């Protein structure tokens, strides 16, 4: 993985392509995350979103192109699937301790920040989807991340929980000033909190602010007219001042 030269850029993905077994999963994808920015990647199933994220994190090596990060960047990662086998006894406390927490005080502070302070002694396997996400978020906060990477954070969380989760993410982001790179299916929630949207369907179809993207014909083609209409209204509502 390379090193970015411009200090304002936290993560720089340049012309990344990924081929696997004769299939092209990603094609010449460019992506940049700047300091304090929230970037969301959206796209249909099979678009390569998770592959892109994992390549950006250095978990996968691209077939061509390159990925650079600001030197010494602390990254916090919330994977799409997180499951602790029931045969492994693991309390939230032990999990956080493993992740670098020094003492109970530090753990409770992180858990309180995400609204999960009651979960300290719970077994990880007993947590609901939403609670697990909060604990995973608390875990990343222990290291003061400069970049938060979230792969479909709202998956497996009920509707109410989703709204809460996104407002929590916004709170964390504004209080800590970290950058956020996120994959999301939830167009409505995405639009409310994102600085920049990237539509991915193996290649980048369109990119820009939420308002700009919903007007883009490529977006309409990707998600259909109804979605575009709904979101245009939503974005419009957001800009409305009475």
């Amino acid at each position, binding site marked *: 993985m390379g090193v970015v030269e411009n200090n304002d850029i936290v993560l720089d993905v340049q012309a990344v392509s990924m081929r696997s077994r004769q299939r092209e999963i990603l094609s010449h994808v460019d992506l940049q995350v700047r300091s304090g920015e929230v970037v969301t990647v959206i796209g249909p199933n099979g678009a390569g979103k998770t592959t892109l994220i*994992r390549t950006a994190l250095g978990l996968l090596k691209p077939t061509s192109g390159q990925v650079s990060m600001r030197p010494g960047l602390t990254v916090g990662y919330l994977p799409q699937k*997180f499951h602790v086998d029931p045969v492994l*006894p693991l309390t939230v406390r032990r999990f956080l301790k493993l992740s670098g927490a020094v003492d109970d005080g530090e753990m409770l502070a992180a858990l309180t920040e995400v609204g999960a302070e009651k979960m300290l002694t719970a*077994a990880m396997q007993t947590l609901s989807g939403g609670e697990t996400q909060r604990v995973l978020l608390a875990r990343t906060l222990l290291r003061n991340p400069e970049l938060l990477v979230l792969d479909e954070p709202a998956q497996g969380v009920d509707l109410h929980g989703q709204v809460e989760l996104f407002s929590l993410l916004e709170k964390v982001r504004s209080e800590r000033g970290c950058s956020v790179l996120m994959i999301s299916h939830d167009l409505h929630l995405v639009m409310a909190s994102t600085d920049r949207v990237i539509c991915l369907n193996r290649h980048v179809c369109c990119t820009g602010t939420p308002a700009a993207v919903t007007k883009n014909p490529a977006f309409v083609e990707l998600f259909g007219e109804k979605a575009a209409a709904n979101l245009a209204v939503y974005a419009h509502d957001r800009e409305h001042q009475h």
Partner: protein
Amino acid sequence: MDDFLVRALIGGLVVAVVAAPFGVFIVWRRLAYFGDTLAHSALLGVALGLLLQINMNVAVVAVCLTVAVLLFLFQRQRQLADDTLLGILAHSTLSLGLVFLSLFETVRVDLMAYLFGDILVVSRGDIGWIVIAGSVSLLTLIKLWKPLLLITINEDMARIDGVHVDLVKLAFVCLLAILVAVMMKIVGLVLVTALFIIPAAAARRVSQTPEMMAMVAALIGAVSVVAGLAGSYRWDTPAGPSIVLAAAALFALFYALPLTRHDGSV
């Protein structure tokens, strides 16, 4: 108590305590069949030791390490399922070992000892070997404990946190190979895996944290060794299988009792 019994007890207890933290990882990482494959290949080590006239312990450790590294590399390929690959290696190495051994006249007498262990003929030298190999393995595992636990919980997260995932995994299977080679003498290669996983599985029932599970497994393993040796002495049953039966009985007991499981359910 007779000398041989004291040595058997010491050897057995050291093995039980060292095996426990490995056993819990074998259960968490689903490596039971992997351990079994290493044990099967140990017989090839015995045969090669006799054939090439080198120290038995060295030969067995060398073969087990080779198989462990080969398996580690092979598991990256995708065409065959892991357990198919393990089955192929386990039975091929065992068969090769048996064929080589048939070239020696004393094979029938020694085979049972290799298959089922001969804890009652453990010598002072054997104890020394077990203690040294066991201590080195245990101390190294303690160093690897935290990163290996992180890898087991979520490999991607561990990698991003800076854990050298491949190195840690490779180190673990190498230590396992050494331990299997050493334990073969005590319980024999057929039952090595049992001594790893049964105490660990029983310990799950009463553990809230990974460390607690390892320590309880050590305790259960130790009790099994004592009970098994006592039973073997009293009823003249083979020692290795008796130890395993004691462990199995404890497992059944733990799961029969109405203990609250530490995930909320009963």
